[in-house]
């Protein structure tokens, strides 16, 4: 990256393979990116592209098969036991299903205090004050609702409580795994605004994983597009959306359903189905559905090349883009 800052998170050639031998499925097939402090990196792609798996591998919820993950210089791979648990406090995750993210039998304020209780870093009165403060910040009145059970809240409220819980240890990196996908549009808007406000206040860095292009663009500074376990394009959101360099990104944007009756209907639709990850195409993985594919695409896997400042694409024939 052409940046003088040190990345907060450095991921190099991350691979996650399930199963063995002939039945091995490479869900993530060599993914590399940096996330800089204070920025939001959006990770977008369709089902099966490996974006959720990447997020879980970063948190070591799923074990990476190979590659390196460095958080502020400390490697996250190979850590075990107490060291791993310690490192985990620097990275937190928010999940897709708000209801199953919270223990239905626990009270809200205990859930938010749980990280503090695990580490006994803050106790007694200070702990209670901190918990109340967190709940207020996410829009849940601690005096009225702090004692209620998690099962009594709606999806949007549960997601707020999850956010409060994840901020208790002041993590450096927050991974949001499809966190608004299960919410209604109006609730989604509230949660996204809340996230932006808290990001500023807590100095967070975000990895925002989602499949909704509009949501990702709204939240992210930079966006990475994944297809079948690989990143095909990564760059600043506005530039990437306005002038995508990778054909897949262009199709993805074309398929995005705009709430506008005048938007051009029947954009060139991406035909066919994504190939099975059990047997990915040789060379460029997108070539089986790409209208521009040539023999070179079948023989040689495209490596990331820079097409503009901070904008990289893995394609032999990137679509021409304006230089900004």
């Amino acid at each position, binding site marked *: 990256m052409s940046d003088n800052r040190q990345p907060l998170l450095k991921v190099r050639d991350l691979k996650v393979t399930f199963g063995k031998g002939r039945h091995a499925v490479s869900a993530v097939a060599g993914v590399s990116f940096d996330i800089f402090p204070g920025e939001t990196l959006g990770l977008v792609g369709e089902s099966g592209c490996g974006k959720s798996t990447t997020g879980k591998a970063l*948190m070591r*919820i799923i074990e990476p098969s190979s590659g390196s993950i460095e958080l502020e210089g400390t490697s996250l791979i190979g850590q075990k036991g107490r060291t791993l*648990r*310690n490192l*985990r*406090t620097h*990275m*937190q*995750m928010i*999940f*897709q*299903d708000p209801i*199953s*993210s*919270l*223990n*239905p*039998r*626990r009270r809200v304020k205990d859930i938010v205090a*749980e*990280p503090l209780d*695990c*580490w006994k870093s803050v106790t007694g009165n200070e702990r209670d004050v901190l918990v109340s403060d967190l709940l207020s910040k996410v*829009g*849940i*009145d601690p005096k*009225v*609702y702090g004692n*209620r*059970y998690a*099962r*009594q*809240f*709606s999806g949007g*409220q549960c997601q707020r409580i*999850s956010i409060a*819980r994840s901020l208790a*240890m002041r993590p450096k990196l927050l991974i949001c795994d499809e966190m608004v996908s299960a919410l209604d549009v109006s609730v989604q808007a*509230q949660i996204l*605004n809340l996230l932006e*406000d808290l990001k500023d206040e807590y100095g967070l860095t975000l990895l925002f994983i989602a499949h909704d292009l509009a949501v990702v663009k709204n939240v992210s500074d930079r966006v990475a597009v994944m297809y079948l376990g690989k990143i095909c394009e990564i760059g600043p959101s506005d530039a990437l959306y306005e002038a995508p360099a990778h054909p897949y990104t262009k199709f993805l944007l074309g398929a995005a359903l705009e709430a506008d009756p005048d938007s051009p209907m029947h954009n060139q639709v991406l035909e066919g189905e994504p190939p099975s990850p059990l047997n990915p195409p040789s060379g460029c993985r997108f070539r089986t559905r790409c209208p521009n594919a040539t023999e070179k695409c079948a023989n040689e896997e495209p490596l990331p090349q820079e097409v503009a400042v901070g904008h990289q694409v893995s394609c032999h024939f990137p679509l021409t883009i304006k230089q900004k």
Partner: protein
Amino acid sequence: MSNAILIEQASIVEKPEKKAPLGPLFWICVGWIALNFLGAIFANVLPLQNPLYQDYASINAGPSLHHLFGTDDIGRDIFARIVFGSRVSIAVGFGAMVIGFGIGTPLGMLAAYRRGRFDTFMTAFMYILLAFPAIIATIAVLSFWTPRSLLKIIIVIGLASVPLVYRVIRTAALAVSTKDYIIAAKVQGATDRRILLKELLPNIAPIGVSFLLIGVATVIALEGTLAFLGLSVSPPTPSWGNMINESRTVLQDNPWLAIFPSLALCLFLLSLNFIGDRLRNHFDVTEVKL
């Protein structure tokens, strides 16, 4: 931002927390069980006839003021024997379940949480044990492990129930351990022990408790079966099963010897089952059903 939050709070409508009502019958059953417990504990100090005293003057007598439930074929007071007999049933029922759950629950929870090799081996082992009819195993062991005592019976039945408890707990724990909040707890840095106790256990407790009560009922009935085969506590110690067994030979002359212990057994089991069922309904935290 604060204005928007205040408006949000004003319209937070809590989902109606309507737990399935326990009902008066539930409490009647609880009362009955409690009564039996108290009877068992305080049998010695209660104004009862001596359960072992053989009053040859009144053999196979019907119920009277002196003998509330009558006497058996060697003159012993049935009522006293039932109260003292409840000790056996309760001890066997709850004692065996304590052993069964004490061993089966941690194993089941660990297997469901850890998965991997521990789960594979333990589950295979337990399923093999389950395939073997527990009753036959119990009968076989008790036939050979003499002299019989209450403690031995409790241990044998208790161990025999471990595979089933393991299966039930493991299944319940599996459903819970895939939920995101377990992953969230791990990600916060909680130790496995903390997760098992604070996150997993409370969520499988309702199923566990209601299964425990039903298990107690089953074991008590099992004791009755063993008594029928002459494998329960040795006479003259009274137990409900023993008494029913003894009544076989004198059924025509003295139906009370069969009726009262059977009633006691039936009512106790029914109450336990009912309580177990109601508790499970009550603690079911799924949505208010339409």
